[in-house]
């Protein structure tokens, strides 16, 4: 695979391939020295136009465990703020001999634009409200491993997954919905109309604004982060009303099935969408998502850049 820009172009075969590789990377990460020389001599540049220390560190850890050279292109000290076009920036950095760019940008589509201007591979670390494919892959990996299912094309079949909150502005929701449904799950999105995307009827999901009607009847509850700036856009009346209708509180948590997984992409807004301590939940897998993130990103980097067997041992 040349790029990982979005779930649709990865396809179900690609998803399964990454999930299988991720199993192997989990095993690598359990070793006393969790490092393999798979990408020795390959240079990876993380190009984060939007700050996200968590995602950047997850990618950088993954790259180091595969022995790649990882460099951070810090936007604040670069020339992108000095009237240089995005294209100029990419062409300049590419000229230094880069095998892959890990791109994060607040605007949808930037990874596709960037890939026109460089021969390097592009890994999307989140673009606008559009895609966050490694998040979707680590979410799929987390669900199926928690349920003990092998990495197959229908490994989420029979599951009903609720995605709760600001779907409209969420790249996580867009990528997750595509990945979950590709692997056979049914998805129900739970949000007020103002936080649903336009023409949501064209999405392969059920829609409701009644969280209480679904909590007892799903296999996974996926809580999205509610950003406070949405208040100023009149998308919800106030945070209290939002929490009352769409927050995971004790009453709702008590009605979850015993085996229901609770997930969140982080960072969590306690007291807004999460009114319970995840540690108090029977099956919160929020920290598991974070640790799986490294293995899945190793799998992605290897899939994009590796030309040898990941077994190449130290």
């Amino acid at each position: 695979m040349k790029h990982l820009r979005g779930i649709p172009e990865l396809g179900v075969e690609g998803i399964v391939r990454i999930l299988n590789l991720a199993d192997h990377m989990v095993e690598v990460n359990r070793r006393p020295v969790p490092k393999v020389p798979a990408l020795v001599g390959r240079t990876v540049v993380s190009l984060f136009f939007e700050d996200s220390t968590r995602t950047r560190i997850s990618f950088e850890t993954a790259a180091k465990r595969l022995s790649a050279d990882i460099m951070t292109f810090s936007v604040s000290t670069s020339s992108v703020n000095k009237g240089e076009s995005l294209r100029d920036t990419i062409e300049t950095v590419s000229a230094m001999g880069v095998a892959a760019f890990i791109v994060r940008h607040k605007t949808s589509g930037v990874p596709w634009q960037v890939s026109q201007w460089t021969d390097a591979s592009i890994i999307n670390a989140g673009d606008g409200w559009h895609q966050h494919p490694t998040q979707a892959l680590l979410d799929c990996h987390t669900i199926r491993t928690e349920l003990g299912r092998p990495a197959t094309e229908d490994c989420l079949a029979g599951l009903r997954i609720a995605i709760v909150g600001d779907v409209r502005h969420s790249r996580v929701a867009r990528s997750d919905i595509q990945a979950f449904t590709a692997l056979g799950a049914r998805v129900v999105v739970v949000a007020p109309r103002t936080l649903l995307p336009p023409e949501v009827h064209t999405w392969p999901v059920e829609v409701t604004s009644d969280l209480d009607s679904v909590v007892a009847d799903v296999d996974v509850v996926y809580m999205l982060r509610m950003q406070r700036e949405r208040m100023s856009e009149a998308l919800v009346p106030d945070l209290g009303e939002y929490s009352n209708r769409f927050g995971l509180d004790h009453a709702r948590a008590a009605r979850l099935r015993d085996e229901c997984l609770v997930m969140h992409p982080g960072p969590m807004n306690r007291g807004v969408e999460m009114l319970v301590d995840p540690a108090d939940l029977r099956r919160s897998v929020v920290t598991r998502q974070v640790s799986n993130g490294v293995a899945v990103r190793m799998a992605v980097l290897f899939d994009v850049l590796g030309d040898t067997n990941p077994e190449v041992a130290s």
Partner: protein
Amino acid sequence: MNAREVNTLNIVGGRVIDPTTDADGRLVDIHVVDGRIAVIVEAGGALPSADSVLDASNAVVSPGFVDLHTHLREPGREESETIETGSRAAALGGFTAVVAMPNTDPAQDSRAVVEFVREQGRRAGLCEVVPSGCITVGRAGEQLVPYAELMKSGVTLFTDDGNGVQDPLLMRRAFEYSSDLGVTMAQHCEVSRLTAGAVMHEGSCCSHLGLPGWPSIAEELMVHRDIELVRITGGRLHVLHVSTARSVEMIRAAKADGLSVTAEVTPHHFTLDDESLRSFDPVFKVNPPLRTMADIEALKAGLRDGTIDAIATDHAPHADHLKEQPLDTAPPGMLGLETAFALSVGELGMDLRSVLACLSWNPARIAGIADRHGRPVAVGEPANLAVLDPGVGWTVDRRRLASKSRNTPYEGRSVTGRVRHTVLNGRAVVIDQVAQR
């Protein structure tokens, strides 16, 4: 030493289609003296000799086109276009007059700037540049421009294009105050509170791409407001770049009520839809945005039944480095002058005469220049003409366009309909697709 130079030009073998002919036109030879048509004979008849001769065989001779909506960028944004380069693109596109939009820097809200734009156009000598004036000072939406003062510089079309006038009180006053001046208020219809940060049409495509949407209602609310303001004020409204089906319906109803409302549509709004944004290429970012196939069908129907009077380009050049940015920061707009005829004749399914009406004599009337553009091809008339090959195909190549910028959304597209020659005030400014200055 010389006697006053007399310019003569013959245009031979062409089929004339103008406001007075039927759709088939008539085959004639034309003799032009000093900017005016002096003799017309049946093709092959005896014609006085001339300094130069344009071959119009197998071609159509039409009144030159008039673009109601051209961004020439000068003064202020000369890196993207100048009045000279934009005029050259216009001439190559068959236009003998273009209305220069006022969102320059400084804006066209004073006689000094308006006169500058007109004079730069005269100096370029490739088409008549007709400056529009702002509706409000600095296009800031706060204070009316002295319309009667700008009329002394020949301005008859006022617009804040780029912005719609948001304040309903101010717009009411603009219509009222101008209602007995005989000028037209041309509105860029966009309620900006509904389009903050918008990149593309709000619909299923934008939903999947995760881009901020520009909802149709933001245009329609202002179309509705202004139609109702015209109803109570007696003002005159021209709706710029109509893009939605519902806007077309409202304009149709307003015309049926006898209101002074006219409208234009751009070629890109009837040839491209919001799916183009799937490429994430900012060349497809334009304001108002590319809409849906249903809107395209409604726009075409509006052109066919006369609800929409004119095809206007909204030619909006942007230098490469401005467009090679993320979609939210890239400026909206696309080139249009050099592709307008081909897209109109090739993709509307309308007869040629109706297309020419929308490109020439209808917009000439709206622009207030019908005394010299969009005229019948007849003895005594000013020779502002386009010679056209409606059936000849060509391929759009951004590097070969005359505009200083290259942001055409039609790169590589095969189109049908070409401009052979353009005649401005009796001088051939384009001969065989080559600009003469």
